[in-house]
């Protein structure tokens, strides 16, 4: 059994990773404001957790201008996708071993 991923396991970061994982494509990014609405998070809270995930190499944050407006987009990195899959597998193993 592999260990728990302490970075991903925090409640808000787990939700962020779940949302980015559900978007599926490797090249797919989601706007910061859409992600915020999806998770019901505040700007500051979401920003802080995204920074932690970016430092861990699990997500990529892209900043660009669209129609002269700054836009922040977030996508999951391949390392993040692997780490999330491993963490979910670990959570399932805990439940399975408790039921056995």
């Amino acid at each position: 059994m592999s260990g728990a991923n302490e970075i991903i396991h925090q409640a808000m970061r787990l939700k962020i990773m779940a949302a980015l994982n559900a978007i599926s494509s490797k090249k797919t990014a989601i706007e910061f404001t859409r992600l915020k609405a999806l998770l019901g998070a505040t700007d500051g809270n979401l920003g802080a957790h995204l920074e932690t995930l970016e430092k861990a190499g699990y997500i990529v944050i892209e900043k660009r201008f669209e129609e002269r407006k700054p836009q922040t987009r977030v996508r999951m990195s391949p390392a993040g996708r692997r780490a999330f899959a491993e963490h979910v597998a670990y959570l399932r193993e805990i439940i399975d071993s408790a039921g056995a």
Partner: protein
Amino acid sequence: MTIDPNEAAASLQDIATIERRTHEALCYSGSSTIFIVWGALVAGGYGLTELYPRSAMIIWPAVTATGCAATALIIAMRRRARPQEVRDWRLIWALALLAAFGAIWSYLLGPVVPRPLMYSFQPTLFMLGIILAGLWLGRFFVVLGLVGIALIAIGHLQPEPWLRWWMAAVQSGTLIVGGVWLGRSGVSR
């Protein structure tokens, strides 16, 4: 770091909730263009019927066929752009069958059923399809379909020519406004 089984179950539940919400938002943004296209086609159909009332039996099947072709094209383009996205083809086929059912009965009943009833039949069937799709795709579809049916029912009480104009405004308006809302609330990528 140790995680007990209750905490693990709660985390998996959180993941499932967010995944469902994300898929719902993806579906909203994917459906937006389809709704706007249908809204524009319905508006065009009413406009042409107003100009050429004798050609209604040609105009509406043409509107339905164009709408179905446009829907298929949008789905195919989206599929090419995002091959990993999961689609429930049974639902798409069910909606296509419902549309075909309505079109055939409209064609057969058109000459014999009172006109105000025909103005309501096909659109309410279309809205029913949206409500049924909403049971799988998200609450907004259910609300949109119910609002559409309520507005059609109100319009049903209007005398001609208000009836036609009301139906044109309500049907195309519901679809276009709904489509714009879906685009805004969906996950744009």
